[in-house]
């Protein structure tokens, strides 16, 4: 039994134009201590998936399917029960460290709060633990910093505080939603390394959400590539990065700027834009942007085909896509 099993997750958001299908038929399994990356461009449903796992979707969202944490279906739980899970068994780090801390409370108080809430620690014990946590996430002079307000810390240090808050109750699963997108590159590396080390030391499972393929490749064991609210390619990170298969995944790779590339050459892009989630095209949602699209793509949802032991791709023209890999689909 896996630690976290997501089965057939669907998230619809009620909008004035009709339901927007933010997440469709999503399946994920996460073993204890495993790390999984979710990658895709803006609006592909990455963050919605994370919020659905935490039970933090906006009120206009309708969620179906099953999210099982240690075999308990989270979607059937009441808000009160979910409050005992969030921050305790599942914790989340957000994208914006600048705005994710409450400006009117000291960082120390904000680290201590989950400890007092979930662990029932006394103020003195919580403070002791908070100092340890701050030391652990690499904040210098915790004794002084504990009395600081968020605006007195830098962005990187605030993200470290967010990590300390997330780690405070030793969660089984850590969800990091673009944890380094708002930070500069040098800090980005430090923060990812910190997350990586802490996850390994604590034996936590990690769900890392990013649009940055490099970040995903370096930090996860498994990957799910999302497009238009659904997973188009998934499997072990080294297998996927070793043999890019889905035309979309190939496009994401081609779009990455490469070191030493010709400066006069334009960056490769995937033509078109992400599909309108309210009026999703029938069949494969990538059809309109896919260089290999054929008539069947417009009609039927592509089947998920296994490629090797742990690699699955949803594409009608998989064979062609694999053949076109070396030539470059988007050149």
């Amino acid at each position, binding site marked *: 039994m896996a630690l976290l099993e997501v089965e057939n997750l669907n998230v619809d958001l009620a909008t004035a134009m009709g339901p927007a299908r933010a997440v469709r038929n999503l399946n994920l399994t996460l073993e204890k201590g495993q790390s999984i990356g979710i990658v895709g461009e803006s609006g592909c449903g990455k963050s919605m998936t994370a919020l659905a796992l*935490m039970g*933090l979707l906006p*009120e206009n969202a309708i969620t179906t399917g099953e999210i099982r944490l240690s075999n308990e279906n989270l979607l059937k739980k009441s*808000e*009160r029960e979910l*409050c*005992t*899970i*969030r*921050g*305790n068994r599942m*914790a*989340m780090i*957000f994208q*914006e460290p600048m*705005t*994710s*801390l*409450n*400006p*009117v*409370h000291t960082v120390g108080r904000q680290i201590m*709060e*989950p400890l007092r*809430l*979930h662990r029932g620690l006394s103020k003195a014990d919580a403070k002791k633990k908070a100092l340890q946590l701050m030391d652990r996430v690499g904040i210098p002079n915790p004794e002084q910093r504990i009395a600081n*307000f968020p*605006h*007195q810390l830098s962005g990187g240090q605030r993200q470290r505080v*967010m990590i300390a*808050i997330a780690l405070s109750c030793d969660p089984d699963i850590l969800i990091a939603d673009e944890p380094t997108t708002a930070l500069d590159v040098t800090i980005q590396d430090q923060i990812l390394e910190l997350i990586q080390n802490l996850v390994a030391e604590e034996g936590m499972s990690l769900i890392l959400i990013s649009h940055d393929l490099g970040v995903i490749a370096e930090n996860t064991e498994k990957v799910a590539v999302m497009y238009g609210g659904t997973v188009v390619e998934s499997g072990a990170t080294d297998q996927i990065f070793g043999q890019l298969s889905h035309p979309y995944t190939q496009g994401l790779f081609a779009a990455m700027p490469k070191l030493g590339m010709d400066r006069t050459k334009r960056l490769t892009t995937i033509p078109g834009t992400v599909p309108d989630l309210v009026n999703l095209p029938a069949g494969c949602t990538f059809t309109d942007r896919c260089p290999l699209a054929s008539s069947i793509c417009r009609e039927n949802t592509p089947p998920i085909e296994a490629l090797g032991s742990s690699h699955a791709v949803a594409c009608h023209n998989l064979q062609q896509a694999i053949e076109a890999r070396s030539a470059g689909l988007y050149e």
Partner: protein
Amino acid sequence: MSISSSQSFVSRCFKSRSFVVGGLMTGFLLLCAITSLFWTPGEIYDISIADRFLSPSLTHWFGTDQFGRDIASLLMTGTQNSITVGVVAVSIGLSVGVTLGLTASAQRGWVEELIMRLSDFSFAFPAILSAIMITAILGPGGVNSILAIGIYNIPIFARLTRGTANAIWAREYVMAARAAGKGKFRITLEHVLPNILSIIIVQVTIQFAIAILAEAALSYLGLGTQPPHPSWGRMLNEAQSLMFFQPLQAVYPGAAIALAVFGLNLLGDGLRDVLDPRLSRKR
């Protein structure tokens, strides 16, 4: 919005001119009210027709009224009345209104709709009109007029609280707090309320001024404080019939009301600058 140290808070207070001037004016009113509890320059309940309409002098700073009472003493004692009305009426509006607003914002859905439509409903009636209606039902008198003004304050605070609280609920730190496993009640108390407090405090000073004005208006109409207790509004009413041969009689209570309202508004304006450093600090 956060106040890093008390020292910078105090120095910000003194930099805001409207805070200092408004604070001084409000402080002066408070001083008058407190002093009048044990000392006034003259007697206010003794009527001596022989001494009526005396000109200002050392014994009667502002002269006497048509019953020979010392106007300065009446004004000072009237301050008590105005401040009581302000404190009690604003407290009613504040406690009930803020609770309703926070509830609406935390619960959303039909609870929010119900609270907001009810407050829209009460907004449909002009303030003074609804206060007159309430005092007409409950009978004229000091307590009932305070109650009426308090009830009128409830939807104002409810609407302000709900609007600003909704903005806080959309913030990322509230999402982060939810991700940490906090319930709606805790988030409301620990995250929403502290972040909207400065806005509410400013509104308190404004409503305080409006309450003083409303009490004066109700007393002027004979629905507020009843004689012989002095009230600025009733003094104004009594002076109205004498306007053509004793015009100064109307000037004193009018100036007192203006002073109180102006001072409180300045204080509120100053507090906004002091409590919210993001707004212009040059004023």
